[in-house]
């Protein structure tokens, strides 16, 4: 992609010092302003939060094996699903790809030395981690039982749990999101290498740029909303509780004004990863580059005008319901455009089924199902029946776990050699991709069926006729947990025992592959200049011998 002006031995020089071994002290990590080290810090934080949130899912699925609420108490169950949702949404999914892969890759992909505001980047991590620890502490020690949605007036007047502390944590972490988004926007605008025009940018950059816009515009609304919940709870000032003169539905409008776009904060970066993976493992340019790029912006824009589809049964006017339903249908268009273009990327390519590609294909399957079931929920009269049932649970897990986490894991495997300088064991990678795919479907497919049968969400105990579906779902969850645990295990193993990675183990295109693995602190040992389009994969050289063989 770039031309390396005569710089012999650059790879060799960098093998000795890179961003990981440049300094070793704890202080050098905790006070680093290197975007790559900050990405690693984020990776450690979110992995801890993932394990906490995931183990709550295990507890929930264990409880739901039997119809009676017999394993844990109702209050414990309600706290468990609150920890599960709050941790995995605010402290895992939202930062997962942007703060880890985005932080690591955005400067490298655009040929920059670092992000625009390096110290702000470190501040973001501190805000995030402090907010996270704060929230987890009060979730685990005191417990909060409002669900991650903090619906009023339950959260502001009725719950006897530490709601104020929990929302304070989310409030603090919100500033991390805002700062990261701001940092990325400025970085992409101002720090591109010479020759790196907007339409030469990797699509990962486009989708993270769109995500950053949502973070900057949406997160302040969440912060204000949670602040008001705290104000009402502590000061008894009527904002949302009708007993004090407030309006409970106002909270839902404000909350979803952020929290619907938040879904796109989770899925858009994952879509960016998929674009990179489909291109690399098809040895082809991404089909319809412009359409894929613009569809990210379209999704970011649409994400702000569909929040009302969470309120179809809340008593908002039927005309508002109709407008939000129509707009929600429109979301399917840019999503479908992406899926079709990714599929077309394989056309006349050379498909290599390495683990990142398996995750990528898994993403296509699960995201398609997640997207199509979204149409059911956008359809007003059908949503009335499905709202707040397991159908909704299954739908958003297909998007946020099937989509976002598959994309995250695909990207993590793809860039693992770049980030750590080590290869993970490929056979294990394939095995885990397959296990996670099967476990996921077994967990969530039965939930669609019981959702249509009427199984409401957030039920500690349930009527016995749903049991068979819950058992299937819990069985799937155990497969899924095994898959995730296995992945974490062999990735950790590879840090010490993995094969040393070359600069470009996948023969991929992109500036990040032109510098050693792991990269030097300054990213490039030269000043990158970009001449090629993104994904300038060459068609494979025909092997004349094989061709002759085929003809014979």
């Amino acid at each position: 992609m770039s031309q390396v002006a005569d710089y012999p031995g650059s790879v060799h020089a960098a093998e000795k010092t890179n961003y990981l071994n440049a300094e070793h002290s704890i202080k050098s990590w905790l006070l680093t302003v290197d975007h790559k080290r900050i990405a690693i810090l984020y990776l450690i934080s979110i992995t801890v939060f993932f394990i906490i949130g995931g183990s709550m899912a295990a507890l929930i699925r264990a409880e739901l094996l039997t119809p009676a609420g017999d394993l844990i108490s109702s209050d414990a169950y309600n706290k468990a699903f609150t920890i599960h949702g709050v941790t995995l949404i605010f402290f895992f999914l939202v930062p997962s790809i942007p703060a880890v892969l985005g932080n690591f890759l955005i400067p490298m992909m655009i040929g920059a030395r670092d992000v625009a505001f390096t110290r702000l980047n470190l501040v973001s991590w501190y805000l995030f981690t402090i907010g996270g620890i704060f929230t987890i502490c009060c979730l685990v020690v005191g417990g909060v039982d409002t669900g991650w949605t903090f619906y009023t007036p339950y959260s502001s007047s009725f719950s006897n749990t530490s709601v104020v502390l929990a929302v304070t944590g989310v409030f603090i972490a919100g500033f991390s999101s805002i700062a990261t988004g701001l940092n990325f926007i400025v970085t992409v605008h101002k720090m591109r290498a010479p020759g790196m025009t907007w339409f030469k940018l990797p699509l990962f950059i486009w989708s993270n740029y769109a995500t950053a816009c949502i973070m900057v515009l949406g997160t302040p609304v969440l912060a204000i909303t949670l602040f008001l919940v705290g104000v009402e709870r502590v000061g008894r000032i009527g904002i949302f509780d009708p007993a004090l003169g407030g309006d409970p539905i106002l909270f839902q409008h404000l909350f979803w004004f952020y929290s619907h776009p938040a879904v796109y904060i989770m899925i858009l970066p994952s879509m960016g990863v998929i674009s990179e993976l489909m291109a690399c493992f098809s040895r082809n340019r991404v089909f319809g580059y412009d359409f894929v790029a613009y569809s990210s912006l379209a999704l970011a824009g649409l994400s702000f005008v569909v929040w009302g589809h969470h309120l179809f049964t809340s008593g908002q006017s039927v005309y508002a319901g109709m407008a939000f339903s129509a707009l929600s249908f429109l979301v399917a268009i840019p999503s479908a455009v992406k899926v079709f273009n990714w599929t077309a990327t394989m056309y006349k390519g050379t498909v290599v089924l390495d683990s990142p590609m398996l995750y990528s294909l898994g993403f296509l399957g699960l995201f398609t199902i997640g997207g199509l079931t979204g149409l059911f929920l956008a359809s007003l009269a059908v949503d009335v029946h499905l709202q707040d049932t397991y159908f909704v649970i299954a739908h958003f897990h297909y998007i946020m776990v099937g989509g976002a986490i598959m994309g995250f894991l695909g990207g993590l495997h793809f860039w693992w050699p770049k980030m750590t300088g080590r290869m993970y064991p490929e056979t294990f990678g394939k095995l885990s991709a397959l296990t996670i795919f099967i476990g996921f479907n077994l967990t969530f497919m039965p939930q669609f069926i019981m959702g249509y049968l009427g199984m409401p969400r957030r039920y500690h105990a349930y009527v016995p006729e749903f049991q068979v579906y819950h058992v299937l779902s819990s069985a799937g969850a155990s497969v899924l947990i095994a898959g995730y645990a296995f992945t974490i295990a062999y990735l950790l193993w590879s840090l010490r025992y993995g094969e040393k990675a070359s600069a470009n183990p996948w023969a991929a295109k992109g500036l990040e592959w032109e510098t050693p693995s792991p990269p030097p602190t300054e990213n490039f040992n030269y000043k990158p200049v970009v001449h090629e389009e993104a994904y300038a994969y060459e068609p494979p050289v025909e092997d004349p011998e094989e061709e002759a063989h085929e003809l014979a």
Partner: protein
Amino acid sequence: MNPIPVWPDQASNFAQEVDLLYILLIGISAFFSLIVFVPIIIMVSKYRMGTKANRKLVHHHNLKLELAWTLIPMMMGVPVFLWAAKLFVDMYQPMEAKNALEISVIGKQWMWQLQHPTGQRENNELHVPLGRVVKLTMISQDVIHSFYVPAFRIKKDVIPGSYHSQWFIPTKEGKYHLFCAEYCGTDHSKMIGTVFVMKPEDYEKWLKNEQWGIGNLRRAETMKEAGERLFTELGCNSCHTVSGGGRTDKVPLAGVFGTERLLSDGRRVLADEEYVRTSIYEPDQMRVAGHNPIMPSFKGRVDEQQVLELITYIKSLSGGSKQ
């Protein structure tokens, strides 16, 4: 072991149409799944590394193709949207049916309290006659709940501070689940009940049944009678008159319900259930133009149940309620 359920009962006027729409959506999803998954499988097997295939690709974009896969899904979405929207409007538009059975519903942590116009009160159970329009007027006493009967395909959030209504016609005899669908705290999953759909003659018998089960109260008076009694007990009649004539300094309530009222702040509002409730709880919020702010608030003195009874009574003064 129970038989494995695969499809919910269809027991209301909405159920069949919602199911048809759902089946249509399944069809559309199956279609799109095919046109996504089949090409993926073909591409992966045909162009996998090591296979012999023509890999000479000239273009990496194709405008016609892009437009096709943008516009065709969009057009397929339009009829689904319209159908679902029409059915939604049917469900949620206020139903003005003669002879509707008007049930009042109070949701509270963690039970449903339902009352028939004839005064029968039920907890977590609702008995309704087959084939008659049932109209629910619902309010919560504390947090948000949601009234959900899967077999009827209806759901409506039950919200503190304001009334929300829902109607349906039961079409099949039987026992059906009633769930609270909006998370409401500790015993959310125990806020469940049963809806009994009965033949009209059985319903009439049930209303007269002296053998009430646990949790069901036999009321000696209808909701209207209870409202009338409260009206006197609370002293409403010292300032309000329920007949056309009488002392002129009394505020007349006859014929008021259902009319438009001009308020002191210039707003014009419909005198509906919500208006009456607000006038009882916070009289200054909706004071009629020309009236002095002398009515005291009855907040804390009458509960949601009693407000519903008063509303039924005041409604009856305008001929709004049959019972």
